[in-house]
């Protein structure tokens, strides 16, 4: 099951996961250009949770019982029966935000790039490997398959 695991014990709260998530979801996919003033809005699917010296990154769990999929009124949100990946078809999302109301982990947001469709962790499928995991400086994020192997 490809899902990103968070390890609160070693998370230093640097927020690079959000930075790299935003790079990946920018139009240019380049860290030098993505945040320039005047660059198109980008978006992060990962939230950094902090309280005192505790912190961890939170994103979609690709739940076994995905309430976002069950609540989706159009059928845009689906869980692939083969891979288990939960994803949203942006061409069919109408922005009713029922998925946001259903997700107990707060892992779905209004996509700040268009303001009209749902945004969630897509595991960087287009990129091949989750950028937040690759760039976490302290191994506080792992891809579950890789964690299983260790």
């Amino acid at each position, binding site marked *: 099951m490809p899902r990103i695991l968070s390890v609160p014990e070693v998370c230093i709260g640097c927020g690079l996961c959000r930075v790299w998530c935003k790079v990946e979801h920018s139009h240019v996919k380049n860290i030098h250009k993505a945040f320039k003033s005047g660059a198109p809005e980008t978006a992060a699917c990962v939230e950094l949770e902090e309280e005192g010296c505790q912190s*961890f990154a939170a994103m979609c*769990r690709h739940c*076994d019982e995905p*309430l976002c999929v069950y609540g989706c*009124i159009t059928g845009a949100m689906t869980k692939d029966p083969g891979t288990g990946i939960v994803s949203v078809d942006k061409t069919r999302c109408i922005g009713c935000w029922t998925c946001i109301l259903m997700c*107990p982990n*707060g892992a*779905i947001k209004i996509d700040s790039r268009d303001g009209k469709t749902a945004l969630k962790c897509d595991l960087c499928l287009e990129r091949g490997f989750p950028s937040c995991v690759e760039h976490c400086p302290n191994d506080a994020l792992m891809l579950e398959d890789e964690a299983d192997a260790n």
Partner: protein
Amino acid sequence: MLIDRFDYLIIGNSTAAIGAIEAIRSKDTDGRIGVVAHEFEHTYSRPLITYFMSGKVPEDKVYYRPEDFYDRYNIERIFGRQVNGISTDDNAVILEDGSRIGYGMLLIAAGGSPISMNVPGVDRPGVFFMNTMDDARRAKGWLAHARRAVVVGAGLTGLKTAEALVELGQEVTVVELAPRVLVTTLDTVASDIVREVMVKNGVDVLTGVQVTSIDGADDTNDVASAVLSTGERIACDSLFVTIGIRPRIEIVNGSDIRVGRGILVDRHMQTNIPNVYAAGDIAEAYDPIMGSSRVLPILPNAYIGGRVAGLNMVGVESLYNLGMSVNSVSFFGYPVMSAGLAAQEEDDFHRVVSIRRGCEYKKFVIKDGKLVGMIVCGDVNRAGIITGLMRAGVNVDGSEQKLLEGGLGLIDLPKDVLAERILSGGRNWF
């Protein structure tokens, strides 16, 4: 005459039926599944029909599941047939022509039918319901030659219909009997905000009034005006009746399946007959916040109820624990969410905390330390964390300020809940 027999027979082809099919097929790839429906349509999303009417969503995008759904799930379709009764003694559904279809397990997911108005003129051409794809198609055709619409009923369907009509360039008046809009979904403050949003976008909203008759034109029978209880007359060339739906329980008339307002089911979505289940808008099912059963016609609960029924039908014991009220909708881009006892005001048993800043509003209802109701308008990101707290019954005493500031995150959850959320694939809600 028995024309066929299925291991699983489902009456209905909408959300609850799909939830059941997907659950059954995840456990049983061989059993024969039949679906009987009075509509001919491929399964479609009912909330999308107003989007179809306005042209925002084309007809080929209104489907709820992909085109190959029935083939992929190996479903046999018996469409365009009306169910007239159920004989639980010989495990058969009786169709309108008297033919019978046998079943091993039956799911009744026939939904609801729109409630009509008992006023003169309700059968005039130009008067529409907003319940089926066919309703939306006929209305869309009619509206090409219309310009002024009256929508009766300011519930979710009524207001979404009004929005669609505005987008089509119609002049729209909404007429609601209750003193405010969305009376079953929101409290007074949130209702007023939504009303302002509608008015700002050009919808005329009249509350506390009724339509007493629908008059026709002099030369044709077509709708030409609506007469109100105030004596006022609103000229219109289309009128939409969106005052609610009622469970289609008449299909179990004459059987020994127990009904209240809907078909009565237990926490397994099972009726009083062991191999007969019900789910969706037709069922009267358990609401954990209310602590009792009720008819609650909302889409997420239809899917989840259908799923729970399907799992039990296939022998995997599951409980319907998620039957609380949840509504999320946006009007002209303004998002509104509510859950549980959203309209509850402060009393001896309920504590209410709320904050309003401009067009943003948050309200939480707390009973014995637990959240039992919420409304979030304007800023809705991460609102699911709050419904998650409601569903898990987490104590929120002391967290009121964080809730109101929108700063309540996963990190504020109790350690055991957090571990389950962060480390696992989500809890097993069933």
